[in-house]
């Protein structure tokens, strides 16, 4: 009997189901879910700790989603082997599933380096899944001193989520600034200030060299006592299933614009996949929810025999801490030939537009973020800047800077 199989049960898997069902309403879909829960909004785990959402509201889709869409979900299982020749996947419980088309949406796993003495730490966690948030909810009390290793997005959202639950929060990172992979020095300093105003302490250009029970001995020699340790150093795409079957891997599973891997009949989507980032012109893992959704849907349509391309992926990050928002998209290519930066900055707001030749390739907005999507659309659609009033647009994102013809299409007809 014909069936589709999806490995994973996150955002990409859900939108893969929706993509399949937009073409094929009948063929059964089997979903292999390592986690024991229906798909939930993964980026909300810090908001859960903060009390801004709850388990019920975190559901990504209505309760009857799987039933309505003819999906069987196998909870608590993983795929351990893929046979492309036989078109089968073997699961962790020994069961074998045959597929007509397969989508690998296995996400990523926190990277935990072998820091000496880590085994002596009683309460240590990573922060990626709902179970991590539930465990931290139990572990952290008003007397807890929390040490977070890693000042990237995951570590800082964890710090924000725990800020009213813990006695103290210290965040360390080997980088000299927070969010070093997303923000430059000036932007990072502004975000750090807001976090510090809410009691979060930073140790930058320094990290835990070893642990001794409830003490971290830093590279600088400083000793940090703590009760709860969170390791937020980074994540790695889960590529093993495809790699071990001979599929092409870089950092993630390489996919084309139709989300096909190098293996016939096998697609990949979400945080495990690596596709073209048109803002920098090379392939990248874009581990953000919008990308997972768009990739998953595209994979689903193609798995079901439709034709869909997703060929304008770019990085898009909405970052916010304690009410201060930073929105960024695309890439900074200003150091390349033809590159330039337009910048406006005062004490409250910051705007950087990254230009190259006749295109906007990226931007960063802190504070005043209104209508940022107009800038994002210029990057995604690679609109030549000479076709619009860029002097107006650089001051404020407005569709009034577009040509009359473009405006007529946007506001005078269905889009």
């Amino acid at each position: 009997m014909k069936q589709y199989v999806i490995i994973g049960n996150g955002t990409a898997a859900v939108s893969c189901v929706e993509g399949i069902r937009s073409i094929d309403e009948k063929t059964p879909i089997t979903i292999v879910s390592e986690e024991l829960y229906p798909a939930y909004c993964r980026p909300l785990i810090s908001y859960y700790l903060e009390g801004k959402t709850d388990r019920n509201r975190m559901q990504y889709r209505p309760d009857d989603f799987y039933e309505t869409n003819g999906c069987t979900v196998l909870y608590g299982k993983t795929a351990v082997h893929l046979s492309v020749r036989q078109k089968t996947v073997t699961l962790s419980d020994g069961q074998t599933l045959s597929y007509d088309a397969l989508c690998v949406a296995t996400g990523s796993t926190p990277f935990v380096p072998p820091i000496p003495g880590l085994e002596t730490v009683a309460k240590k966690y990573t922060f990626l899944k709902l179970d991590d948030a539930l465990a931290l909810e139990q572990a952290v009390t008003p007397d807890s001193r929390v040490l977070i290793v890693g000042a990237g997005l995951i570590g800082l959202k964890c710090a924000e989520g725990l800020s009213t639950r813990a006695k103290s929060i210290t965040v360390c990172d080997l980088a000299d600034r927070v969010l070093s992979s997303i923000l430059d020095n000036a932007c990072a300093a502004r975000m750090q200030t807001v976090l510090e105003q809410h009691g979060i302490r930073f140790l930058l250009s320094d990290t835990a060299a070893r642990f001794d029970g409830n003490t971290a001995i830093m590279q600088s020699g400083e000793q940090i006592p703590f009760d709860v340790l969170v390791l937020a150093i980074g994540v790695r795409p889960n590529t093993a299933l495809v790699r071990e079957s001979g599929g092409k891997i870089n950092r993630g599973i390489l996919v084309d614009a139709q989300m096909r891997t190098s293996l016939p009949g096998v697609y990949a989507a979400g945080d495990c996949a690596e596709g073209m980032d048109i803002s920098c012109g090379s392939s990248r893992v874009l581990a953000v929810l919008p990308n997972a959704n768009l990739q998953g849907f595209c994979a689903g349509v193609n798995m079901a025999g439709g034709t869909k391309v997703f060929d304008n992926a770019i990085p898009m990050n909405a970052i916010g801490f304690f009410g201060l928002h930073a929105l960024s998209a695309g890439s900074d290519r200003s150091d390349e030939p033809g590159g330039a930066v337009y910048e406006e900055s005062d004490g409250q707001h910051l705007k950087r537009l990254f230009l190259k030749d006749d295109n906007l390739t990226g931007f960063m907005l802190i504070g005043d973020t209104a209508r940022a999507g107009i800038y994002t659309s210029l990057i995604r659609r690679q609109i030549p800047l000479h076709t619009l009033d860029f002097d107006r647009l650089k001051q404020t994102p407005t569709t009034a800077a577009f040509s009359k013809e473009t405006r007529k299409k946007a506001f005078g007809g269905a889009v």
Partner: protein
Amino acid sequence: MKRIYVNEDWCLGCHLCEYNCAFANSGEADMAAALKGKPLFPRIHIEEGDKICYAVSCRHCEDPLCVKSCIAGALQVKDGVITVDQSRCVGCLTCVLVCPYGALAPNENGVMQKCELCLQNSCGEPACVKGCPNRAIVFEERSAVL
């Protein structure tokens, strides 16, 4: 489906649509009580350029990037109308980051709000259309402009 369309040649830039929108969504019976002396958070706004102005509200896109990008599953499509479930929204602004029209903005509490065509409020039909003195905003069935 019926959507809101604007004709920039007829827009006077009077901003009445912004007031009518904020009033229709205020839940108040009296316009003065709803708006007087308060900051305005309309779901439509006037864009102004060189000698042109026009109103912008949600286009209710057929392939809505905001819905696909929402990290909280708060933006949904119901019968072609894009709505926001404010109880789910965490105010992350991802939708602001992706909307090509600049049509979404947070309310006074940082929760997203957007044009839902006045289908759920007391107006029952788009208040911006009803109150536009020059018929620069209309609510009707159209296909794409090619």
